[in-house]
């Protein structure tokens, strides 16, 4: 490998950057190869969409103006800047695809029991990354300041406001006042482009470092096989090349969605106008939105909202603490129970998301 790079250039770089140990590690490292290997690529796919999102986000920064002129600047990006609509469409689609890929990655690691010792911190760092990705989505949703974004954010921020004691304070802090105004956009913008990346990137590096530390986990079906029968492929170049090919496929899926369904921009937000009848959050918040709505219907008043929040948060906490309930490397009774818990969580997410969309009134935009 070094020879093919040009020995002189390589040794010059190696002397200064210490490349040899990294290369040796990459050449020695192996990745398990079995019938569930497909799921190993989803972490990489999530990372790919994150990189695309960062790149397009920086381009959007060149023209986006937070504050009073936010809507006009997005309109300008969409209709006057060359390929501005494309960059915005890629940014929005990659954000959604990143969250979708992260969900697939999370559930695949869950069902492969990849959260078990010694990978608990991998699970928790991944959980943190997905949570931050969803906050990225929520903060980015408002930035164009069109009517749907405005009213969806208004509804979204009314949810923490019902929490006792700290709720109204949190909502006011995020909004920058009692209403959604230009100050809210500035705060969401700062959150979106400074605070969240500052939290996300170190956590991502920790997550990737832990993957290197512990290697890919092997599903139980593979663990039961004698070591000699387990197959593996070299990390470099075999797995890396496959990963690159998968990224190319992901790029094409992104290109298809971004050009065939350009991300829309609704009319400018008008706080005095009635909220659109079909107001709803992004798809990845639809489940929690619908659960809160359902509890609100079953238990009218603040009680319903509080119970809804309590039910949802209890589920989230249980989900995060799963490595503590099921720490053993072999599945006993607890292992099976946790698997069933995973199926229930997945079913609740899917059913409530579909339910949420099914009950939305049809409105032509």
């Amino acid at each position, binding site marked *: 490998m070094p020879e093919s790079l040009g020995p002189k250039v390589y040794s010059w770089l190696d002397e200064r950057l210490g490349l040899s140990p990294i290369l040796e590690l990459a050449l020695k490292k192996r990745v398990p190869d079995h019938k569930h290997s497909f799921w190993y690529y989803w972490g990489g796919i999530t990372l790919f969409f994150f990189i695309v999102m960062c790149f397009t986000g920086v381009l959007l920064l060149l023209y986006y103006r937070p504050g009073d002129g936010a809507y006009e600047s997005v309109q300008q990006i969409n209709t006057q800047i060359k390929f501005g609509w494309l960059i915005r469409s890629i940014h929005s689609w990659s954000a959604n695809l990143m969250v979708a890929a992260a969900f697939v990655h999370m559930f695949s690691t869950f069902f492969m029991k990849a959260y078990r010792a010694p990978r608990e911190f991998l699970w928790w760092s991944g959980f943190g990354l997905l949570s931050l990705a969803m906050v990225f989505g929520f903060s980015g949703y408002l930035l164009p300041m069109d009517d749907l974004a405005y009213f969806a954010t208004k509804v979204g921020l009314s949810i923490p406001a019902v929490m006792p004691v700290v709720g109204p304070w949190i909502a006011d802090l995020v909004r920058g006042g009692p209403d959604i105004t230009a100050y809210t956009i500035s705060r969401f913008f700062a959150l979106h482009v400074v605070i969240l990346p500052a939290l996300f990137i170190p956590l991502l590096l920790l997550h990737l470092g832990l993957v290197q530390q512990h290697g890919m986990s092997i599903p139980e079906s593979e663990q039961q096989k004698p070591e000699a029968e387990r197959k593996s492929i070299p990390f470099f*170049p075999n797995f890396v090349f496959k990963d690159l*090919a998968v990224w190319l496929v992901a790029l094409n899926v992104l290109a298809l969605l971004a050009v065939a369904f350009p991300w829309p921009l609704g009319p400018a937000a008008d706080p005095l106008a009635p909220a659109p009848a079909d107001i709803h959050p992004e798809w990845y918040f639809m489940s929690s939105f619908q659960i809160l709505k359902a509890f609100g219907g079953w238990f009218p008043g603040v009680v319903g909202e509080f119970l809804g929040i309590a039910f949802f948060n209890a589920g989230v906490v249980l989900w995060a603490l799963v490595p503590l309930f099921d720490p053993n490397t072999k599945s006993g009774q607890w292992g099976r129970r946790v698997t069933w818990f995973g199926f229930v969580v997945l079913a609740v997410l899917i059913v409530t998301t579909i339910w949420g969309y099914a009950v939305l009134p049809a409105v032509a935009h």
Partner: protein
Amino acid sequence: MNYPAWDVPYLGSGWMIGIVAIIHILISHFAVGGGIFLPLTEAKALREGRKDWMLRLKGYSKFFLVLTGVFGAMTGVGIWFAIGLASPNGTSALIHNFVFGWAIEWVFFLVELTLAMVYYYTWDRIPAKLHLTIGWIYAAVSWGTLVIINGILTFKLTPGPEWMASVGTGRESEYFFDAFFNAGYLPSLGLRTLACLSLAGIWSLYFFSRLDGESDGKTKASMVQWSSMFLIPSFLLMPVFFAWYVFTIPADHRALLELGISSASAGTFTHVTRMTILSVVSSATIALAVMFFAWFQPTELKRGHALSILFLALLATGSTESVREFLRKPFVVNGYMYSNGVRVNQIEGFNRDGYLTGSVWSPVSPDAAFHHKSVGERMFQGQCMACHTLDGYRPIRKLLAGRDTTSIGSVLKMLHDNAPESPYRKFMPPLVGTEEEIRALRDWLAVQVAPASH
């Protein structure tokens, strides 16, 4: 019953053609490229004495025969059904102008299908050299089908000047060769031949991905790498032929590409730019995906990987063919017939005597099968429905949302006048018909857009 106007709710008739055509192109181009792949591979196997290859090639030729002979032929007939229903005037024009071309094409098809069967059934039954010769004849005949259809397809965007001058004289078919060997003919033939070779490689990757990488490792590695090499000509030459092709596109139509650079509106006019972006991305990345999935680690190529590559081929084919179709806007045959089947030389007559009076497909007659439909609805079916649906693809209700009767009337007037400065002129046909007919269309559209207020 929606005869003679083919109403496909939500999707639109154009998409029906598109879906059938994209599947057909993926297979028919393989029929041509695979025709070259088979004898080339067989010759190499014979030369190098590779019995393992010969064994796999026999299985491959069965796969080839079933895929191209059954699915290729079925979807080919499907295209004829679809275009006959969606664009009867355009189909009629192509048939009448290229009678001799179609006759040659169908002879080629017959020989092609017969030879594919002979090739498969004579494995190990006739001398190897003769078998290989059959393969080469198949390759020539199969490429011949492309040589013919390419002339007819490129004619639609760049009909020859002499043929255009003969329009309306009744002697159009005398200018067959001018129409056939038009400006876009050669670059398009080059592009399609390259696409055929690429698709041969991609379908072959799918077939050979089924070989076991452990027990059959050497054979799999060599056949997968050999198949991958069929994408190299495209990777190197496609940009050259593409640039040549773009150069032959008339300037008015090339300008359509620029309409979507700074905007992606909900209407139709940016579609061609958007699909061009997809075409470039998918065409540029497909060879890289093959390199990473197949070339570098041939024994590890699995069916899922091969299907992913096939998916990229579907994207590349679909988007490129879509661009080719949309570059002709607002025509179906450039300068001769609009996308809704109205001929340029009919406009005056339709405006004077009425569209419905003169339309073959929607006559005003007491015996008309659809007499119960209003004039406005028949105007919509005849002139709008080739490209628009009510709800769904290019939805009229969404595009006209918020407009009242007067405002819709203004849009229709702009379409009818078709003035040089009209923004619609570049991609929409002029609206034809008498004042009464256009008023009827306006009123019908107004009811569709805001049914509650009427």
